[in-house]
């Protein structure tokens, strides 16, 4: 008999919470069945630890100290006066507060033709068959702990559809705000379908109004139709106390163009997962991100990409800046099945260590079964270049400022790929704030 390790406090909280909440969470009996299956998996295996390959660098069992109760309703007045994370008059802000979509806080006026937006909770309650079908995930994705917890506990989210050929001019911004004390958990699922030849920019911001140990789990399932063009950018701005897990599931159709950018600026424990797949030939995609860490924070970026069709091109670029005793992990796996000839994939990850105790782990992997491909990967890790620093110092620039310039330059290679100016500027503003605080 195999000894089951004792449940951790977080596991105990999970096991206590789910049976108490399962029937009050939104959804018909079919939805409850899906939730049960997802939770059953987690209950059986427990939280993943470092001997579970996909969680090698992020031992969730050891790192997740608690699993706080579900968030109650948010105080709307506080959310109304909070400054937006991205200053953009153009963006259509859709607010998800404490895990619930709040239409009354959202900008729904003059929805562009071809754009539809509704609440996931409502669809789950109604047993909407299309939405139920969209909850179905590939087995490996469904079994992932962060995903399974999202499935089990999801309270709401947005179901967004963009009709074939529609060009959505205004970026759609999903604003996730946690509000209130004590710490609470949220699980939000978005289902976004972008039709053939359609275009949209999808922004996600994740933040908390209170510096408490909130636990947010945000998952976005995105269907990029044939010939569609989608730009997805996420700013994770949680407080240091928080735990934030995000999952992006993207299916990229034939001749589509897709970019996703993840800025992991906050949370004491952050995990950003991407499960992407090229489902049609001649498509391209860019996967990029920056992570900034200090204190004892930990951030993990895990990318699984299946180059599942011929002649697709992908670029992966992830940069991390790590100070103090913080730790960053990057795992990138690109699989190229035998039929995916003419695949072109370049994965690069670079870490800049700002202190002796800072740590970066990188595990880029290629699994190539096709023979006519161009694939490459690289990983670098190092401190600020002394010669570059000396040059700046020799011109009178003080050390802290010179280092900030070099850190910004290091991140800039990735950040400058962001096409949306407002998000780009918002991110640069945050990065500069981080650097100023560090220099002070």
């Amino acid at each position, binding site marked *: 008999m195999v000894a089951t390790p004792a449940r951790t406090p977080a596991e105990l909280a999970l096991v206590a919470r789910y049976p108490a909440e399962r029937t009050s969470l939104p959804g018909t009996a079919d939805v409850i069945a899906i939730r049960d299956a997802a939770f059953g998996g987690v209950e059986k295996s427990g939280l993943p630890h470092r001997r579970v390959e996909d969680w090698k660098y992020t031992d969730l069992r050891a790192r997740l100290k608690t699993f706080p109760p579900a968030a109650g309703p948010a105080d709307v007045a506080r959310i109304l006066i909070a400054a937006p994370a991205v200053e953009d008059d153009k963006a259509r802000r859709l607010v998800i507060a404490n895990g619930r979509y709040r239409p009354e806080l959202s900008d729904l006026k003059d929805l562009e033709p071809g754009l539809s937006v509704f609440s996931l909770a409502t669809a789950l309650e109604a047993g909407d068959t299309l939405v139920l079908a969209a909850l179905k995930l590939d087995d490996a994705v469904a079994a992932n702990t962060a995903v399974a917890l999202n499935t089990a506990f999801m309270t709401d989210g947005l179901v967004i559809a963009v009709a074939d050929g529609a060009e959505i001019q205004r970026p759609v911004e999903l604003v996730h705000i946690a509000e209130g004390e004590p710490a609470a958990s949220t699980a939000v699922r978005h289902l976004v379908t972008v039709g053939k030849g359609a275009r949209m920019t999808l922004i996600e911001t994740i933040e908390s109004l209170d510096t408490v140990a909130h636990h947010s789990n945000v998952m976005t399932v995105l269907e990029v139709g044939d010939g569609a063009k989608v730009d997805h950018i996420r700013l994770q701005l949680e407080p240091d106390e928080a735990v934030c897990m995000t999952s992006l599931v993207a299916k990229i159709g034939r001749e589509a163009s897709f970019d996703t950018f993840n800025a992991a600026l906050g949370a004491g424990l952050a995990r950003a997962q991407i499960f992407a797949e090229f489902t049609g030939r001649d498509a391209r995609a860019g996967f990029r991100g920056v992570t900034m860490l200090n204190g004892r924070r930990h951030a993990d970026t895990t990318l699984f990409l299946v180059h599942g069709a011929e002649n697709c091109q992908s670029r992966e670029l992830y940069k991390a800046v790590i100070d103090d005793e913080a730790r960053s992990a990057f795992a990138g796996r690109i699989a190229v099945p035998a039929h995916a000839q003419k695949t072109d994939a370049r994965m690069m990850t670079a870490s800049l260590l700002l202190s002796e105790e800072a740590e970066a782990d990188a595990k880029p992997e290629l699994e190539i079964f096709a023979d006519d491909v161009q694939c490459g990967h690289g990983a670098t890790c190092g401190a600020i270049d002394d*010669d*570059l620093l*000396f*040059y*700046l*110092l*020799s*011109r*009178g*620039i*003080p*050390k802290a*400022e*010179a280092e900030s*310039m*070099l850190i*910004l*330059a*290091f991140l*800039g*290679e990735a950040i400058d790929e962001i096409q949306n100016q407002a998000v780009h500027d918002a991110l640069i503003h945050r990065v500069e704030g981080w650097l100023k605080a560090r220099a002070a």
Partner: protein
Amino acid sequence: MLEIKNLHARIGDREILKGLSLTVKPGEVHAIMGPNGAGKSTLSYILAGKDDYEITEGEVLLNGQSILDLTPNERSVAGLFLAFQYPIEIPGVATMTFLKAALNSHRKAKGQDELTTPEFMKLVKGVAERLNITSDMLKRPVNVGFSGGEKKRAEIMQMALLQPSICILDETDSGLDIDALKVVSEGVNALRSPDRAFVVITHYQRLLDHIVPDIVHVLSDGRIVRTGGPELALDLEKNGYAAYVADAAA
């Protein structure tokens, strides 16, 4: 202005400067010549404050004050400038951002207000124009993609902007074509003034035709082994270093 007294410096267990002394007075132009590997660049790096070297003996005074304990940026705002032999490329740092940060650091140290952007632009454009630095070069990251000669001109542009009191030029002439040599020399000569001094490290008389030195030194094996007037450079050009290298070894 600059006094170097019996400077000994090593890297690892290799001694590179072996008791180097040099005094530069305001308004003077000194040329330092010497064979490859003599320690010329090492001297310039040590003056600018690179911390790869261990100073085992001696001192360096700038305007009567010891600078060996100052950080490189403190030395810069104290008026010391090094035009590098090999200016480094800094991808991702815009030239204008860099120049502005440098200039404002100097102004701050002097208790002056930061320049406004239009004031700054005007200042840079003026200096750049005189050194044939195009606005395209100014739009690029620091030194990135600059040709060898362009990098050297950019160094002199920085020098002209920062208005140092002691300028050390490490082989600024190498890599320059004949026209650029003239432009750079004119740039340097325009900065000559009674309260500014230059230490010009070079291998070639042709630079000294344009920037006429008051004093010429021969640096060999970590020491100044000979000091003379401009005619010394001409003599070196004709006869090489053989005599001095032998002297140093003796």
